[in-house]
């Protein structure tokens, strides 16, 4: 978990580094440990970027396999998590772009495009909402997903990685291959748009 105390981040990074080293040395089960540790986050990030739970699961699996294949090239094993998230993000954006490209050649698909993300969100199977108010939580979740789906790509990535996943801005900048200032600006723009989208949930 990127969020929380620095101490916790360090502990996890050290654990990651150890598991990466063991996996590179051929220890069976070491990579499985890493996969189990980050599978939910990987699927979560992919889902928020592509808006389709099945595609998100496929993307996350692809990301793990790619990470496994290139594990020996990871220079700093402590940075496994941001490295993995970068792979997930890139694969998700590629998927999204290819989907948009294929939608562009189909008038029917284009007509559905505007609602595509929202319908995908509705179709996604979610974990149970907080017990206090399930219906409101589902509505809120759907509204957030819809709002995220309408954001420009960079704003969506910045908000997802920074605000939802709690990845530090510096890491987000590396993942997005841009400056930290641009990440801050994109986060702000995304917040501004989401503020309007979520106005009905503010009371």
């Amino acid at each position, binding site marked *: 978990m990127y969020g929380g105390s620095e101490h916790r981040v360090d502990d996890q990074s050290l654990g990651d580094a150890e598991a990466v080293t063991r996996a590179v040395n051929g220890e069976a089960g070491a990579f499985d440990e890493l996969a*189990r540790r980050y*599978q*939910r986050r990987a*699927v*979560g990030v992919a889902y928020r970027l592509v808006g389709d739970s099945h595609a998100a699961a496929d993307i996350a699996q692809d990301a793990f396999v790619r990470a496994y294949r290139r594990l020996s090239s990871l220079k700093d094993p402590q940075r496994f998590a941001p490295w993995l998230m970068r792979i997930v993000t890139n694969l998700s954006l590629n998927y999204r772009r290819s989907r948009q490209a294929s939608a562009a050649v189909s008038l029917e698909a284009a007509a559905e495009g505007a609602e595509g993300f929202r319908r995908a969100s509705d179709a996604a199977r979610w*974990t149970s909402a907080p017990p206090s108010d399930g219906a409101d939580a589902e509505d809120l979740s759907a509204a957030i997903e819809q709002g995220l789906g309408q954001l420009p790509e960079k704003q969506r990535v910045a908000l997802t990685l920074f605000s939802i996943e709690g990845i530090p801005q510096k890491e987000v900048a590396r993942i997005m291959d841009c400056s930290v200032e641009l990440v801050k600006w994109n986060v702000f723009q995304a917040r501004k748009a*989401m*503020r309007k989208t979520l106005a009905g949930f503010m009371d």
Partner: protein
Amino acid sequence: MTHEQPNHDDREFLISRYIDGDLDNTARRELESTLRDDPELARALESYRRTDALIRSLEEFGPKLDWEQFAAEVRRRCALVDARKRRTLIHRVYAPLATAAVIALMCTAYLMFPRELTGPATPLPKVLVQLNRPAGGTNTWQTHRVVMVRANRTPPPGFSDARPSGGRYAIAAAGANSFGHPGETEETSPFF
């Protein structure tokens, strides 16, 4: 775009950075002072905070998957990667190495035992060797065709190894029958 809009955006951008704890002490104190005097900005801050909290709440949700199955699938695909790596290693490293070793072995064996490996030697053509200039002083023989022979420097019995003075050896394929004086030629095993 009016002059107020960028200022408004700039102030809201400051709020966004303030929420993230991204402002230095001076900028933070300055904004906090402004917030005390500007209720609209204070409301904007509160609104951004709540928006951010709502967005962060999404972290609690995620696609409902069978995580055991997910992990098993990752494991299975990683095992395939390992198998592919092994195959690649065999194809790209071991197979060429084995081929090179076999070739090297064959070359060594050929160099050490050439006759055994190449089988019985091809019989050389018989040649006629004229040791002396034809009688009468007229060279009527001519080269019929050139043949490859293996030199055997041991003259057969009755033949001198001495090169005739002023004469030349003439070698021609057996049966060429192009010598002017056949009586003065001998058919023999290859020898030079």
